[in-house]
């Protein structure tokens, strides 16, 4: 769901952003540990801002029993950590195969839309593998939203279809909030240069 920022007044923008973020947090399923921006940045192999070029789902697996995976190609416009190349490829479980009329949901994974501008925290599937998953599941994806005059950019946390627990295993309400893009960039850069 995109946040309706286009015609919002400045005062309303922050409220809408908060509202959208919390709306996006409506659905949770998996239980996973909470990760702040700094932890995500440190734990990731790469952090980039870019535009989603393609989202393609396909069946994988041996034998007749198959799973759906989704490959997301992101045209990188800014490298905040690491070098995933000019196009970063994210591969994650779940997706929709329209011609089969079949979808598969693995709760906790972020959803991507073609043309969407994002900031993503990426972790290689394995050291020698070129593809990535999103760090911290959906916590590692922010959507960049711009005001209609283009003067302000906000990074809106992704819908997280997961419950968050702290390092102690206890539930936490310490969920990510929308940030100005410049603020997010600053925090990532501070974390990776420490």
């Amino acid at each position: 769901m995109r946040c309706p920022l286009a015609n919002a007044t400045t005062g309303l923008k922050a409220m809408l952003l908060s509202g959208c973020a919390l709306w996006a947090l409506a659905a949770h399923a998996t239980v996973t540990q909470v990760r702040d921006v700094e932890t995500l940045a440190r734990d990731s192999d790469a952090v980039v801002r870019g535009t989603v070029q393609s989202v393609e789902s396909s069946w994988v697996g041996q034998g007749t029993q198959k799973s759906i995976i989704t490959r997301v190609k992101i045209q990188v416009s800014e490298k905040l950590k690491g070098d995933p190349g000019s196009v970063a490829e994210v591969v994650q479980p779940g997706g929709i195969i329209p011609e089969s009329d079949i979808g598969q949901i693995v709760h906790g994974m972020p959803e991507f839309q073609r043309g969407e501008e994002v900031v993503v925290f990426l972790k290689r599937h394995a050291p020698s593998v070129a593809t990535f998953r999103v760090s911290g599941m959906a916590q590692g994806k922010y959507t960049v939203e711009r005001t209609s005059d283009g003067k302000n950019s906000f990074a809106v946390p992704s819908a997280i279809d997961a419950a968050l627990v702290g390092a102690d295993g206890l539930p936490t309400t310490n969920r990510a909030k929308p940030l100005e893009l410049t603020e997010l960039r600053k925090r990532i850069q501070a974390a990776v240069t420490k």
Partner: protein
Amino acid sequence: MIATSPILVAIAAITSGVGSAPYVRSHVSATDPNSSCLWWAAGSVVYNQSDAGNPVNGGTEFTAVTRSWQSWQTIQNGCGNLTLSEGPHLSAPAGRTVGYTQGSSDNHNVVMFRRRLCRNVAPAGDPCFSNFTCNNVYDCWGNPDTTIGLTTTTYRVSNGEILDADIEFNAALFHFTTADSPTCSGTNYSNCVATDVQNTATHEFGHSLGLDHTMYCGSVDGGTMCSVMRDSSPNGEISKRTIDPWSASFICDVYPRGLPSQDCAQVATKSGCAAVPGSMAWPLAVLCIFLLRRQTVRRRS
């Protein structure tokens, strides 16, 4: 008098009430609230446990998982159109495989404990890492370390009908237990509760039936009870072994006895504002109240 605009009322409702509806349904697309909700067609749903179980529990894990789906079936017995049951324990490969076979009537809704980490058993550079197939190929946990359990649900995109639901537990990194008390401390996990199997499985079966999380807690018999789909599961918790009245009402609303199972639009239109399910319920309810009050004021004036 303080004037309040509809949009501010809606935002206030969103910021305070999201995820706090008595029950929240899963959608075909998490980012599209207008997409269909997930539901099983009326009839029979059979779960199969992997015969591998979780050996550290000495077989008690099978009983705990059985009790979990049975607690949902008890509600179905009262008002539902589904019959949940358990088939034979399955050995590999069927009992260790998550996924779906198209066009086959031989799909199993498998429940299994993964006891090894994929990064420890699959060779580095194995294509299974980038294809996300290591879990099935090497019988291992390939999801994030911090995730306790996952339900993979396969559904028909056009209408949300669930076709298959497989549940994996992360027994590679979490200590699953079946005792009733006390909460485990330190590194001792015998005769105490760490990550309770029945607590976790009852919650996951809720997902397999089309429920998503909610933060909702309410008053029951003079005390406070929280939803079995509440998004928290601290060590030692066993309260989710008991299904709350709101998750039970999901069963009655979505799987009404003698009727077809209901997509979200069908449930939402049954009684107007009051029955809007899912995450939009509270914002829309507040908007409904606002509009009704405004109508009343206009009539009076």
